[in-house]
C-alpha cells in the first residue's frame, strides 16, 4: 500500500478550495479566449451525437429536434446581481418557488403512502437547496434575492403530479442552462450536485404522470436559458 500516495488522495476541502480559486483565473482567461466558438462547437457536438444515435435507435432517443441549444449565450437578468451571485440568486428564486409548491402540496394531503413520503422528501430537499444557496450568496458578499410569493393551482393529485413533473424538469433545465456560465469551480460543483437531484425528482415524478418520460429529451438533457425559465414560472408568482 503506497501510504504516501494515499495521504495525497485524502480530500482536504480547504486545499481544494484554494486550488480551485487559483485555477479560476485560468478558467476565466480561457473562457474569454474561447468565447462563442466554444458554445457553437457544443451545439455541433450534441447535434452530431443525436444524429448518430438516430441510426441505431427507434424511440424518443432519436429525436434530433430536441437537441440542446447553446447554453452559454443566456444570462440571468441584471436585477439578480452580477456573475455567480446573479446565477445563485436566480437559482434561489426558483428554489423558493419549489419549496413553497411542495409545502402546499404536502399541506393539501393529496398523496399518501410511498408517494406521500417521496413528495415530503423532495420538499425537504428543496428547503435544503434554499438554505444552502441563501448562505452561499451571503458568503460571497451578495444580497440574497427576496423570497417570491408563489401561487399554485393545487387541485387534484393527478394535476399536481403533472405540475410537479413540469416544475422539476424546468428546474433541471435551468441549472443545466447556467452550468457553463458559473465562474467559481466550487459554486459549479455545488450547482452540479443540486442539478442532478432536480433531475432525480423529475424522473421520479415521471412515473406518476400518464405519458411521463424518465428521459423526456432522450440521451441528452436540454438546457433552458433564464428568460425561458422565468417566463415559465411567471404565472406561479403572486
Amino acid at each position, binding site marked *: 500500500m503506497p501510504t504516501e500516495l494515499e495521504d495525497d*488522495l485524502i*480530500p482536504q476541502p480547504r486545499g481544494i478550495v484554494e486550488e480551485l480559486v487559483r485555477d479560476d483565473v485560468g478558467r476565466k482567461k*480561457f473562457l474569454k479566449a474561447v468565447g462563442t466558438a466554444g458554445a457553437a462547437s457544443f451545439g455541433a457536438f450534441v447535434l*452530431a451525437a443525436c444524429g448518430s444515435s438516430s441510426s441505431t435507435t427507434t424511440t424518443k432517443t432519436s429525436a434530433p429536434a430536441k437537441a440542446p441549444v447553446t447554453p452559454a449565450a443566456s444570462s440571468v437578468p441584471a436585477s439578480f446581481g452580477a456573475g455567480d451571485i446573479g446565477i445563485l440568486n436566480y437559482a434561489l428564486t426558483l428554489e423558493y418557488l419549489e419549496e413553497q409548491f411542495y409545502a402546499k402540496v404536502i399541506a393539501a394531503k393529496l398523496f399518501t403512502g410511498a408517494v406521500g413520503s417521496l413528495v415530503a422528501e423532495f420538499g425537504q430537499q428543496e428547503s*435544503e437547496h434554499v438554505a444552502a444557496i441563501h448562505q*452561499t450568496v451571503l458568503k460571497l458578499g451578495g444580497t440574497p434575492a427576496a423570497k417570491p410569493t408563489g401561487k399554485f393551482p393545487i387541485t387534484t393529485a393527478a394535476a399536481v403530479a403533472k405540475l410537479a413533473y413540469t416544475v422539476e424538469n424546468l428546474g433541471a433545465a435551468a441549472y*443545466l442552462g447556467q*452550468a*457553463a456560465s458559473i465562474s467559481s469551480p466550487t459554486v459549479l460543483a455545488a450547482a452540479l450536485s443540486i442539478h442532478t437531484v432536480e433531475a*432525480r425528482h423529475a424522473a421520479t415524478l415521471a412515473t406518476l404522470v400518464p405519458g411521463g418520460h424518465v428521459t423526456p429529451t432522450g440521451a441528452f438533457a436540454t438546457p433552458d436559458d433564464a428568460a425561458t425559465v422565468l417566463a415559465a414560472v411567471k404565472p406561479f408568482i403572486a
Partner: protein
Amino acid sequence: MNTERLAHPELVELEVGGVTRASFLVRGAVAAAAVYGTAAAAPFVSSALGATTDVDILNFALTLEYLETDFYQVKAKTVGLTGLAAHDASNFGMEEAAHVAALTQAINKSGGTPVPKPTFSFPVTDAKAFLDLAYIVENLGVSAYNGAGPLLKSKALLAAAGSIVQIEARHAAAIGLLIGKTPTPSGGFDIAKNMTQVLAVAGPLIKK
C-alpha cells in the same frame, strides 16, 4: 444526512471530490491500479498519464459509458428482465450508447484518441442482482461526472457533460424506484467522486 447538511449549508464547503486535475487522474489511476490490479485500471491509466487535458477526462467518462452500454445492451439480455425493467434497460442502453458516440466524437474533434472499449465482467445472473448493480452503476456515473465537471477547462464540454449527467441521474432514480430504493440516495445534494473513488466500484467490473 439531511440534518447534517442543513447544519452546514454553505455550498462552498461541499466536497468537490477531486483535488487537482493531475491528482484526479494520474494519482487516482496509479493508486487504483495498486489496489485493484493494473488490468482493471489500465483503460483509465492509459488515458490518465498525460492527465491534464479535457481529453483525458472525456476518456475517463468514455470508459464508464462503455461499461454502462455493455451492461444494458449485452448483460441485460442474459438475466431475464421483464416488464418495466426490460423497457428501461432497453431505453437506457440506447442512451448510454449515444453517450459513447458523443464522447468518442468529442475526443476526436478535440484532437485526442478515444480509449478502446474494455472487456467487462458483471457478477450478476438474475434480474434482481442486475437491477441492484444498475442502481450502483448509475449512481456512480452521476458522482463521476459531478466530480469531473469542475475540472473541465472547456465550457462547451462542461455543458455537454452536464447534459449527459442529468440523464444518468434520471436513470439512477428510475432504477431506484424499480427496486424499492430511494431515488435520492444522497439527499438534497448529489455526491461527487474522484477517480480513485469511482474505480473502487468500476475497477472490479473491468476485465481488461
